[in-house]
């Protein structure tokens, strides 16, 4: 007899829904209030500077993810392609540009607002990729708003003082540019406060993710995709700290009660790269049914920065910008992943080759095979994309995943 197993929902999600609702409504109000300003920022910052200048900060990548998760991307991408943005370039970018061109936004259904808030400034960080710069430039032209940003050195093995000094200098120059643009002086006390809050939220988020080290894990990658929103959208604010304090308490309770995220946790998986947003639900259900618990990922960890212990806030920002996983070379990444597999007691690794994001894909230069040889763990690489489902075959991917389970089972015999 098969007993239907049920997922135990994470209670904090209710609080998250309210937070998200308030966040977007506040942004929408700020965009129409001539006394308030909105800045668009990359998910990896430098949002603390914008917060310190008094901007309400909006993150277009989150909109890209929502377009994917709500299965709207495919309607939007053609409009961007038609004006010259390649269908093979970042599908967050093409779906977001297409969404603006076609006037469709998931924010309408989710929060009752017409779409993203109009920007007064757009600020990027190319430590993750160059695409964001071109993406921001599109909207800068469209809204006649200034676009500025930083370009840290990328693909680093060791991060040296020379690297962080360079980025610190870039951040300083960025502040000067914003000062001359707005005629307002940077409020350094506010910057310290924002950095301190960012760091606190980020440390709590890391602790939440670390609860997945226990057996069974109380949380999976698929939960992380939902609950990581505040550490991106609200870091630098007390809301994110309060939220992760609540979530961490719940995760600790679940750990103590041996409440599993995947009720029949059979195998523990490391997930590399981005989610396939339009298929997250299907995949999460498939993994659940197969007893696969994605206990570790570098994607959810991207916003788990190191602690700020006071002192120069720009130095902390420079360090987080250069040390972040996506910004590192393959030697660093390989070692990082091996350590992660040990820490989280991983049975197998799944690499998502996201066709339109080479930057967040780590299977293109033989790393999956090298990791398999070094760790002895089975490795699966599947083709897909973060938002553009035309690059994804459900049947083929599900067969790949089922075979992976057969392979894992074979190793247990």
């Amino acid at each position, binding site marked *: 007899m098969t007993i239907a197993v049920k997922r135990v929902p994470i209670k904090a999600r209710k609080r998250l829904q309210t937070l998200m609702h308030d966040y977007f409504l506040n942004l929408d109000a700020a965009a129409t209030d001539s006394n308030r300003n909105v800045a668009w920022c990359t998910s990896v910052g430098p949002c603390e500077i914008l917060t310190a200048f008094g901007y309400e900060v909006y993150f277009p990548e989150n909109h890209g993810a929502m377009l994917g998760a709500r299965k709207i991307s495919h309607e939007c991408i053609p409009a961007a392609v038609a004006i010259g943005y390649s269908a093979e370039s970042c599908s967050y970018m093409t779906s977001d540009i297409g969404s603006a061109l076609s006037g469709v936004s998931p924010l309408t259904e989710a929060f009752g607002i017409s779409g993203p808030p109009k920007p007064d400034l757009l600020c990027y960080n190319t430590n993750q990729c160059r695409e964001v710069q071109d993406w921001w430039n599109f909207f800068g032209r469209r809204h006649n708003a200034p676009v500025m940003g930083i370009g840290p050195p990328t693909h680093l093995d060791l991060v040296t003082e020379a690297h962080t000094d360079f980025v610190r200098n870039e951040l300083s120059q960025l502040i000067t540019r914003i000062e001359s643009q707005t005629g307002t002086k940077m409020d350094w006390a506010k910057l310290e406060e924002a950095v301190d809050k960012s760091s606190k939220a980020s440390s709590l988020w890391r602790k939440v993710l670390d609860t997945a080290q226990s057996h069974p894990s109380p949380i999976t990658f698929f939960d992380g995709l939902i609950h990581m929103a505040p550490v991106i959208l609200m870091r630098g604010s007390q809301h994110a700290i309060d939220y992760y304090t609540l979530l961490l308490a719940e995760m600790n309770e679940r750990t103590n009660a041996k409440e599993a995220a995947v009720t029949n946790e059979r195998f523990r998986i490391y997930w590399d790269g981005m989610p396939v947003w339009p298929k997250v639900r299907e995949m999460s259900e498939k993994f659940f049914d197969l007893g696969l618990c994605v206990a570790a990922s570098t994607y959810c960890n991207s916003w788990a920065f190191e602690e700020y212990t006071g002192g120069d806030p720009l130095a902390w920002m420079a360090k987080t910008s250069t040390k972040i996983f996506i910004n590192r070379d393959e030697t660093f990444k390989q070692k990082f992943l091996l350590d992660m597999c040990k820490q989280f007691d991983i049975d197998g690794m799944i690499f998502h080759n996201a066709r339109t994001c080479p930057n967040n894909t780590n299977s293109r230069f033989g790393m999956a095979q090298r990791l*398999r040889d070094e760790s002895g763990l*089975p*490795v699966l*690489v599947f*083709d897909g994309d973060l938002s553009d489902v035309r*690059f*994804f*075959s459900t*049947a*083929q991917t599900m*067969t*790949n995943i*089922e*075979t992976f389970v*057969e*392979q894992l089972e*074979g*190793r247990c*015999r």
Partner: protein
Amino acid sequence: MRENLFIGIDVGSSATKCVILDNTGTWLGHHVVSSGVNYADAIDTVVSHALLQAEGSKKDIAYCVSTGYGRKHVTFSDRFVTEITAHARGAREWNPSVRNIIDIGGQDTKYIRIDDNGQLIDYRMNAKCAAGTGTFLESIAVKLGMTLSELDELALKSTAPTLVNSYCTVFAGTEVIERIKEGQSPEDIAMGLFHSIASRVKEMIPCSVETVGVTGGVVEHCRALVIALEEALSGAIIEAPMPQHAGAYGAALLALESNPIFESKVDHA
């Protein structure tokens, strides 16, 4: 009338295959039909024909394993396995020395690596498009107004195969038309298409691999492909005796190994 039949059904995107074994592993029957659009019909047809050959009936089925893209459509299956596991099992039974297998099917091409105990170590599927699969050949054959077997026959007469560069079925079709316009012989162009598949297959196999077992419907029906593969892989290929049935055979063997005598049986009648 027989008892204890072990049945493997491979419901592929192009063809549905069935193999029946007795409790000693002896092959009693098999059948293949095009999958068409109604999997239930295709499954019914292969099972009844194979049972007829095996001189058995549905109630004699002791255990059924289904595999392939449409495996979940076999309503009476006792166990579902992926086509990768099934092909690995079938190919290994035919040749126990096989450690690397390439299966070239209608919709996808798979590379499978197993260890000395038959355990899966590595596998890969073609990237999500027709390149390197039977569909690639079929689409171009249609464009040229012939069947796949006619394309194969034509290719076998080639003396100097043409190079077909494009991975994309549509672009390869255009390339073929360009070659025809240039006056290249249809035989050489046809063989060029098989070489194009072989070179895609080669990309899936690590060069340290010495011999490769080949399975799949396209291998069974296209001699030109076997020749192209031999050339691409420097002659290191071992062709399965009934390549198209490797998956169904593997599934039947897995059914036998599931030792149903001690398991509760579902009602197959």
